[in-house]
């Protein structure tokens, strides 16, 4: 083959491709579906690169130190667009950065250390919570004061004992302080404008820590004023950033759905081809298994397995494939293969002495293969939703963040009762979008590959 000819071939190929792409315009739903899935694939790749697998698991497991600076059940930041108020966001002041530390020697052995933690509060809504994180090299006692923009000084705590370690002072939950403030929540009182009821006083605040520290000792402090909104997706009851789960739900949902669909569709396809061609006992055995499988309650068995043995997503994937091989597609495939089996060209192949293997793989399967792709794509959403269903029943993967687990957490924590709609709506919409993407592609492919449906 000469180079000119090769080039000609290439041109032809490109023209073919281009022609193929242009004909896509006749199927706008196919294009829409492909774009949706492409977006999810890009998001998945980003997730895997930006937050490695082990990191995602560590983040979702949480625990001390991981999400301490996030507010609980905070709404997503884009809630700001829908209100005229400026919703409070989390403010973090540390003695190392914005804060100031003054050290005065008291006597030969101790210093008087003053830590000032200033910040500007410019939001229309109150903060959610107030925590002070301290790190001291020895145990010591400190007094904490609060300076408001209009010059008032409020004593939060006098001579509080701090252990010689990292410690968290939950100011919002300090019952002594709540009593002292007239049975009102500290994070509300400290930010209230005294001239009005229930209005925020904006301006420069400051918290001061005054402690006697033995010489050579260290004291650092960090004040966190938790906001009402946090992150692109909000946070849950364990202060976790829901965005992590939403992002990682994409690759998990895609992989689970696609692997389960490919696995079941291909194995079913192969088995039904072999069964139909060989006929006799093989065929009846497969048919019988399909009948039995119809009566096995798939979801309860999956749940029982997850509950008794292992609920990791990969075990579930394997089990889902195993239980779906003898599903309803076996019946439809069989009907098609039975028809194809009678075709004259199969008879011709037999006449020239083709072996069973050759007939099945070279003649029988290619004939039905066009129906395979729409079948496969159409079944993906049901598997994606199956994973979510398992999670909603509390049998999601124990460590991995998935959309279904976010819905489960939200449901269990009464997100709908408490008006935290974002918590459940976000993962639900993503699930739906992924499902719609595959369905759009599947139904279009069905019309392209299934001429009978196209003509009617």
């Amino acid at each position, binding site marked *: 083959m000469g180079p000119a000819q090769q080039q000609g071939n290439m041109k032809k190929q490109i023209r073919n491709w281009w022609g193929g792409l242009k004909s896509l315009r006749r199927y706008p*739903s196919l294009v829409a579906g492909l774009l949706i899935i492409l977006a999810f694939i890009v998001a998945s790749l980003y997730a895997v690169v930006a937050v490695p697998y082990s990191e995602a698991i560590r983040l979702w497991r949480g625990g001390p130190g991981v999400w301490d600076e996030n507010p609980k059940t905070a709404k997503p930041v884009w809630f700001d667009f829908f209100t005229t108020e400026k919703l409070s966001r989390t403010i973090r002041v540390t003695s190392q950065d914005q804060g100031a530390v003054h050290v005065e020697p008291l006597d030969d052995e101790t210093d008087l250390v003053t830590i000032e933690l200033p910040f500007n509060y410019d939001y229309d809504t109150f903060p959610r919570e107030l925590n002070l994180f301290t790190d001291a090299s020895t145990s010591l006692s400190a007094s904490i004061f609060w300076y408001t923009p209009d010059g008032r000084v409020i004593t939060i705590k006098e001579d509080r004992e701090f252990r010689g370690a990292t410690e968290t002072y939950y100011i919002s939950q300090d019952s002594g302080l709540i009593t002292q403030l007239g049975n009102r929540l500290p994070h509300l009182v400290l930010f209230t404008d005294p001239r009005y009821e229930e209005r925020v006083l904006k301006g420069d605040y400051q918290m001061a820590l005054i402690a006697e520290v033995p010489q050579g000792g260290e004291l650092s402090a960090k004040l966190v004023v938790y906001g009402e909104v946090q992150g692109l997706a909000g946070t849950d009851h364990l202060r976790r950033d829901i965005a992590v789960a939403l992002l990682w739900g994409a690759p998990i949902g895609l992989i689970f759905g696609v692997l389960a669909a490919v696995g079941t569709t291909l194995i079913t396809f192969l088995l039904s081809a072999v069964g139909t061609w060989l006929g006799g006992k093989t065929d009846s055995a497969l048919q*019988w298994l399909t*009948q*039995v*499988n*119809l*009566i*096995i*309650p*798939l*979801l*309860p*068995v999956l*749940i*029982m*397995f997850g*509950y*008794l*043995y292992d609920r990791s997503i990969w075990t579930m994937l394997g089990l889902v494939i195993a239980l779906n091989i003898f599903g*309803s597609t076996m*019946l439809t495939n069989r*009907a098609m293969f039975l028809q194809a089996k009678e075709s004259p060209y199969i008879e011709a192949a037999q006449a020239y002495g083709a072996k069973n293997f050759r007939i099945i793989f070279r003649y029988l399967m290619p004939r039905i293969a066009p129906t395979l792709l729409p079948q496969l794509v159409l079944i993906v*959403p*049901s598997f994606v*939703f199956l994973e*979510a*269903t398992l999670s*909603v*029943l*509390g*049998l999601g993967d124990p460590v991995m963040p998935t959309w279904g687990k976010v*819905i489960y957490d939200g*449901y269990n924590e009464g997100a*709908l*009762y408490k*008006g935290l*709609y974002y918590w*459940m*709506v976000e993962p*639900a919409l993503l*699930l*739906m979008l992924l*499902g*719609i993407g*595959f*369905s*759009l592609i*599947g*139904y279009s492919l069905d019309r392209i590959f299934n001429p*009978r*449906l196209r003509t*009617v």
Partner: protein
Amino acid sequence: MRQDVIKLGGFVLRRALWLGLALVVAIYLTIIIANMGGALDEIRKTEIRGDVAVSIVMNPANKGLPPSVLQQMIEAELEREFDRLGLNQPFFPKRSFMYLWNAISLQLGRAEYLRSDAGSAQVRLILLERLPTTLVLFATAQLLIFFVSLFAALLLSRRYGSFLDKLVIALAPSSAAPGWFYGLFLILIFAAVLRVLPWGNMIDVPVPEDRALYALSVAKHLILPVTAVTLSNLVGNIYTWRTFFLIYSSEDYVELARAKGLSVRGVDTRYILRPTMPPILTHLLLVLITMWMGQIVLETVFNWPGIGRIFYWATQASDTPVIIGVIVIFGYLLAATVFALDFAYAILDPRVRLGAGAAAR
């Protein structure tokens, strides 16, 4: 005619035996999975061991006895317990068949934690008590979906290419999402935001004394779950069935009937609906099986006091006998569904009961 009835009876009997056998195999497989390599027995033995040890050590009568004596008492009691529960026999084949027989005859044992509303610990009683509520929800949704789908599909097949037809095609992907999924949105909209319909459960508290009020209350609670299932199934059903109708309405005999001047209604019911019913029933069977599975989550999300919710509670409370019991009941329900549709199929399609079309299914 009489011949026909005998043939039908024979077919029904054959199918019943066949399905019965399939059910036995399905349940047996479930039991094997549940007790793979005796894992289930081990779990039970460990639990019994813990219970026995606690009951003997905590018994005030045994106070002051030396640990070695206590240990002996525990061992002896354990032996008695294992014997009583048949745990000392090998699993294959005897005990597995024992479990199988127990399951099939619905001797589902005693629940470990859950109780029926009447206070019984019998798994059978717990589940049978919940069966009617499950059936109410399932049947209401089913009947609604079936008849609406049937008439809508027939209507659309007559108006092929109309706006409504295109709308159904466009909305067909909505069936990819299960009922509970739409349920969440419905709860959000109608219970949380608008506060016009109940969050879940089956009846108001306090329960109305009056019969009519009682029915009204149940109906009110049915609206959201039934709508949820309908949303997830209706359009997909209409889409598929409409295609079946289109295929059968382009047959020559239909054209002839129209040419003869038969009424639209007559053509629809006798010439299109009748031959289309068998494929519709086959499709319906698969939809029904999926919906039985969906029932578990639906009941959980809507807090509907049926078998599905009991199943959820059982997994939460680690109540193994109830979990196995629910699977057995679901096996029966699925077999009954398949049988009912087979029966309808045989009545609609004479080829099936004459034996010729049996292979076509």
